[in-house]
């Protein structure tokens, strides 16, 4: 359908090799009102995640007696895409909210907070393929920032198929004109909590894609860990300062 070439001499349009992530920037604790928050850039994606809770559930009949419920709202700002989108959720954002919630739910110790809710809100400020994975990465860190007890972090990125080759972390053009896109999310121990695929892959390509995406997630995990440690030690320092007074 498209004559464009996306990989030339092993180098992609934006200069990356097949197994490279786009540049990542993460900042934790960027919002004052939220209990936890994280800002993330993955290439040209800019997302911000906030966590509120555990807090009371309204309306009451949504309460679960023996655990917290998790809500996840993925939302794109009207100005985040080329053609302005109407505010409010569409079918795509309902689906992404559901799979993103299910990507994080397995690691949250919900049984610690019966009858309560943990709300995760992700706002996409700029979109360039990969917003759901960026959102999950940011949300995972925001949960930690909010002090929500978790088994582990969750890290997420996509692998895709472009010019017949499996590549890591496709950007917008690769996603639009590529042959497949497969976002995943995994725990540090390799358990898969998100897995979607559309496009066409053979079984072999699928295994390659999984391996490549796992590698990307591991790299992201290191960054997530680092920003949390940095923030944590900053508090430590502050505490030290405080005790010195």
């Amino acid at each position: 359908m498209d004559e464009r070439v996306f990989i030339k001499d092993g180098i992609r349009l934006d200069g990356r090799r097949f197994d490279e992530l786009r540049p990542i920037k993460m900042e934790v604790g960027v919002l004052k009102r939220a209990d936890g928050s994280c800002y993330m850039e993955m290439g040209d994606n800019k997302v911000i995640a906030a966590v509120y809770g555990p807090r009371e559930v309204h309306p009451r009949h949504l309460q679960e007696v023996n655990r917290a419920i998790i809500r996840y709202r993925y939302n794109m700002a009207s100005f985040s895409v080329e053609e302005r989108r109407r505010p409010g959720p569409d079918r795509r954002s309902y689906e992404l909210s559901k799979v993103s919630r299910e990507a994080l739910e397995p690691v949250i110790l919900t049984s610690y907070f019966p009858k309560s809710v943990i709300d995760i809100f992700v706002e996409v400020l700029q979109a360039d393929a990969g917003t759901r994975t960026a959102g999950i990465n940011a949300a995972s860190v925001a949960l930690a920032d909010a002090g929500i007890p978790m088994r582990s972090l969750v890290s997420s990125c996509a692998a895709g198929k472009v010019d017949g080759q499996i590549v890591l972390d496709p950007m917008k053009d690769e996603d639009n004109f590529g042959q497949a896109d497969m976002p995943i999310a995994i725990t540090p121990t390799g358990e898969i909590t998100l897995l979607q695929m559309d496009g066409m892959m053979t079984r072999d390509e699928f295994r390659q894609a999984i391996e490549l995406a796992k590698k990307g997630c591991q790299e992201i995990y290191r960054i997530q860990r680092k920003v949390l440690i940095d923030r944590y030690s900053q508090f430590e320092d502050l505490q030290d300062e405080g005790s010195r007074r």
Partner: protein
Amino acid sequence: MSSVISEIRKDYLYNLLLRGERADGRSFTQYRPIEIERNIIKKAEGSALVRLGKTQVMVGIKIQPGEPFPDAPNRGVIVTNAELVPLASPIFEPGPPNEYGIELARVVDRGVRESGAVDLDALCIVPGEKVWVIFIDIHILDDCGNIMDASSLGAIAALLGSTVPASRFGLGDDFQLPVRDIPIATTAVEFGDVVLFDPDIDEEAIADAKLTVITKADGTICGMQKSGPGMLSEEQVYRIVDIACENAKEIREKFLE
């Protein structure tokens, strides 16, 4: 089902599974009996009633002229919608589709779309202005488990028997909807080390993670969706994918070719 009954039922099913058995005697990879009745809705351009065990799903196809998408001005359009009508389950509620209905419709849609099942290039009427729009409407009638596979099967079965009603709109002779591939969705759930295909409603209730794999006639994977608040190991995923391809092949050959 009250929660007490449901706990007992859950324990029972688990114990069975530990012994390598399922409540209805199926093997872990085996589907419930499948029946497909086609073209039973005369008002629709195509239709299929799928029975997957006790699960019943009706899919209707309507085809009408409409506008193409700006980025594909010469191609037909597919619109997929799923109604989890409250008739089908005590937990379905009236109202616009919730996230479960939306996910169902979007996964079925991706299977049809990504497999290139419908030859959309053959559905242009006036380039850039008018194309055939195919509405795939999924109506769940009785949810006894695995409505994903039943819906997906209903969609392709209905498409296979659909006629483009050109004459009704003064656009030439009616013609059969050109279908080029037969994507089949197969779904499995995990229990510890075990994966079960075609979960019934009780098995779904106790499983944490579910994986749907859609394959084309040539064995290529054209769609996947993990759902449910659980996780899958890499090995489980590979195992499901491998068996899914086999199951899909069997279903495709038996019911749709």
